[in-house]
């Protein structure tokens, strides 16, 4: 592994995104617009403020989905375009490649999270008890998790079509079981236990902790679990990425 090569990969991925302004705008703007849509939808509802209840979970879910998709498609493109084969014939450690990707998309996620959190708290009046910046930190960790999972599953996809199908297979169950629709402790026993081993649950818990309480102890614990999953996915990604292919 080498820092120079990792940074080279990250800089290259960012240069590619910079050449594609439409993707960049979509990446930053769409989460903000969706948060606004959510706010508008709940605006005239009487009783408890549903926006305050649901928005933190969505701030965790967006970066995860988006980075998962972007990463799986980008790495598939690298594989089918032949550049992956060329890189693997060069003195590049597999982790250089994976960490380079994680770094680049983590940086994009930071911009995305800062905007989505800024809009939610600044314009839409999301009520946050804990530190607001921590929402963005969890968002970034969550995006890196999405990237790591995307890198890992792209090893099992031969085409872009297959890669995209991994989204409903691996991401949607996490959204269903993360506590957004039914609180995690109110789920059937078995589903609650499955929910306990899915990383997105911890990201949503962290977001809800920040929004609902000013003590940050639980947040850091949940954040550590998310980071742990991300590291594990990267390690698995390095283990499943084969230099020699049939």
């Amino acid at each position, binding site marked *: 592994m080498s820092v120079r090569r990792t940074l080279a990969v990250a800089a290259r991925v960012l*240069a590619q995104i910079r*050449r594609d302004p439409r993707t960049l705008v979509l990446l930053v703007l769409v989460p903000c617009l969706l948060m606004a849509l959510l706010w508008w939808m709940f605006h005239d509802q009487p009783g408890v403020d549903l926006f305050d209840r649901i928005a933190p979970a969505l701030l965790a879910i967006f970066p995860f989905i988006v980075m998962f998709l972007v990463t799986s498609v980008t790495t598939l493109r690298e594989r089918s375009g032949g550049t992956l084969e060329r890189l693997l014939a060069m003195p590049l450690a597999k982790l250089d490649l994976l960490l380079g990707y994680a770094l680049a998309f983590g940086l994009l996620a930071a911009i995305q999270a800062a905007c989505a959190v800024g809009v939610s708290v600044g314009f839409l009046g999301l009520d946050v008890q804990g530190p607001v910046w921590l929402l963005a930190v969890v968002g970034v960790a969550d995006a890196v998790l999405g990237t790591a999972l995307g890198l890992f599953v792209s090893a099992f996809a031969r085409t872009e079509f297959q890669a995209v199908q991994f989204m409903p297979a691996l991401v949607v169950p996490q959204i269903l079981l993360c506590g957004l629709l039914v609180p995690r402790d109110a789920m059937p026993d078995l589903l609650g236990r499955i929910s306990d081993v899915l990383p997105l649950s911890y990201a949503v818990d962290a977001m809800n902790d920040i929004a609902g309480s000013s003590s940050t102890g639980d947040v850091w614990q949940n954040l550590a679990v998310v980071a742990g999953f991300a590291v594990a996915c990267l390690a698995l990604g390095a283990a499943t990425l084969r230099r020699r*292919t049939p």
Partner: protein
Amino acid sequence: MNNAVEAHGLEVTRGSREVLRGLDFTVPVGEVTGLLGPSGCGKSTLMRVLVGVQAKVTGTVQVFGQPAGSRALRSRIGYVTQAASVYDDLSITENLAFFARVLGVDRGEIDRCLEAVDLGGHADQVVRNLSGGQRSRVNLAVALLGKPDLLVLDEPTVGLDPVLRESLWVMFHRLADDGAAVLVSSHVMDEAERCDRLLLMRDGVFIADGTPAAIKQKAGVDDIEQAFLSIVRGAR
């Protein structure tokens, strides 16, 4: 003579199919070796073996005295894949700068390699907007970064203008004269005459191995295409 590559009993299977069936060959330093044969005969697979990205390889393949694919070899081999393995959404210079950083070679190399493939004037163009021929020259320029000791070039001249093709062959010979081993594949038999030595391949085996002149003489004909045909007919 000094050999960059020495292979004995090289076999590769893909699925249930034997793609390479027991090859013995060498690639000498200081010469341009041509790997010629029809599409699908196993040329690309052989090249993938040499650069260490092919799975299910049996037999021994030594590159500069080390097993093919060894870590220490990765910075000594320049590899041109058949598909233009460069980033469409980056400029030519950005592509070369990226691979130069991965290889750890000096940025000055970028200009030298661009000049070598006659792309000096296009450096800031985005690869997506280039013609097929220009794109394959960018692909070749990346393989030249860092003056590798072994060049493995999979059909580097396909689809290029004859004038440019001529100049690339001159460059391959210059690289060989400077001490590199150059292995070039092609499915166009016309290019045979430009090689110092030929490996003629069909269905995963070599049907001839020698200088163009020796192969033609042995087959009793006066061009390589005829030699190929007469060897194949003779084998039936």
